[in-house]
């Protein structure tokens, strides 16, 4: 049993190649920025990673809504939700780390109490809570229900975080790419756009594997019970025939329990 298929292997190789191209263009072809100098190179990682973080939590919200909706309720939506949340949490951590490195070089501090930064940190904490909650519930139906509710509440933080630079006075810069006149051109623009493709492929590879892994875990749990039942049945059938007088003790499988008459 494996979470890998021919398609996921192709996806993984494509993601690796795309990352290599991103590194090549970002480190050698893209010129330094007039204002930021070499620091511009972090733009070929940080915005794409942050977008994948939102995509992960978006998938989680989508899966949760579809699971909560009675007409579309299916375990596969719950698998999609956990895959999105787990991959989203990884990309959220990467967003905080790369953003912190950029902040140290630009603002002189690893961390500042900016609305965007604080909300991203809260989102990361919420995602850890979501994953901890899933591990604490054994019943699949209850797990899907409670985690779907938490996922929807987490989605509110995603929306707030996304619009934080527009709604609050923040140090964090506003959008660079998605506006009528982007303030980025040439190889910088090409590399930044490519970084979304590269990290998108990494995201897809991780999410597909996590989704399949969840399906395998469910199968393992179900088949684990069936295997245990089968082995108990086989054990019962393999027992030697019990004499009529000892039938009372037939529930016991140890020979010591069969008490011999003392005289």
């Amino acid at each position, binding site marked *: 049993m494996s979470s890998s298929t021919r398609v996921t292997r192709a996806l993984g190789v494509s993601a690796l190649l795309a990352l290599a191209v991103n590194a090549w263009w970002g480190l050698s072809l893209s010129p330094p920025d007039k204002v930021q100098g070499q620091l511009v190179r972090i733009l070929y990682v940080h915005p794409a990673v942050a977008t994948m973080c939102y995509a992960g939590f978006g998938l989680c919200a989508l899966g949760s809504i579809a699971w909560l909706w009675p007409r579309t309720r299916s375990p596969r939506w719950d698998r999609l939700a956990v895959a999105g949340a787990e991959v989203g949490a990884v990309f959220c951590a990467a967003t905080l780390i790369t953003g912190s490195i950029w902040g140290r070089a630009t603002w002189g501090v690893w961390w500042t109490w900016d609305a965007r930064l604080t909300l991203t940190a*809260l989102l990361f*904490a*919420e995602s850890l*809570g979501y994953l*901890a*909650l899933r591990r*604490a519930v054994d019943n699949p139906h209850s797990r899907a229900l409670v985690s779907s509710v938490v996922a929807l509440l987490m989605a509110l933080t995603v929306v707030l975080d996304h619009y934080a630079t527009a709604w609050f006075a923040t140090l964090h810069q506003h959008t660079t790419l998605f506006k009528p006149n982007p303030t980025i051109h040439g190889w910088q623009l090409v590399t930044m756009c490519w970084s979304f493709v590269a990290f998108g492929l990494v995201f897809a590879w991780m999410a597909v594997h996590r989704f399949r892994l969840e399906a395998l875990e469910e199968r393992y749990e179900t088949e684990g019970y069936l295997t245990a039942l089968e082995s108990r049945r086989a054990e019962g059938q393999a027992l030697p025939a019990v004499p009529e007088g000892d039938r009372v003790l037939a529930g016991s499988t140890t020979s010591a329990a069969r008490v011999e008459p003392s005289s």
Partner: protein
Amino acid sequence: MWRDAALVAGKDLRIEGRAKVAVNQVAPYALVVLLLFGFAFDQDKPLLVQAAPGLYWMAVLFSGLLAVQRSFSLESADAAMDALRLSRLEPAGVFLGKVAAVAAQLLLLEVLLALGVVVLFQSRLSGAALLAASAAVSTAGVAAAGVVYGALCTGLRARETLLPLLLAPVLAPVVLAATEAWRSALGLSRGDGWHWLALLGCFAAVYLAGGAVGFGALMEET
């Protein structure tokens, strides 16, 4: 629904009145937290006065977590949640009743903590209308979110540690907005505290409405 809410709130408050956990344990804990904040700032009086609103709301948050945990530990014992489920009370009424009981305990605690802040941090209370309004709305928000997450965690493994992990990040906006509203009321900032009150109102409304609608499903699963 309102009758059911009053019944549940009355039941929870009667149990608290008899067990006196809030008075004998949660309130002294909140005061100890205030004292520890004083030690942490090394009796730096101007800094303590500046930071008093934030420290006050942090103490409320910590105490609120205890109050919510207590509210649902009552329902965990002797399968009381099953009895509540079978009692034919409206789930929205049960939710609002539990919110009212937690909020009533928190409001009493907030009065006590405000006295503590005045005495220990030598803060001068002013802007009574904004202080009282933001305290009331924040308390509703903390209690509503607390009851939603408390219900989610009922009956789970490691619920004692899971609840703070889930609830603290969710309550962060309440702590932020309530602190800013109080800073404005106490004259420690130039910001408009009433805007922060509106944000608190939105938070409370979302959790009160969401909890009232979804509490039935949560009760069925916990």
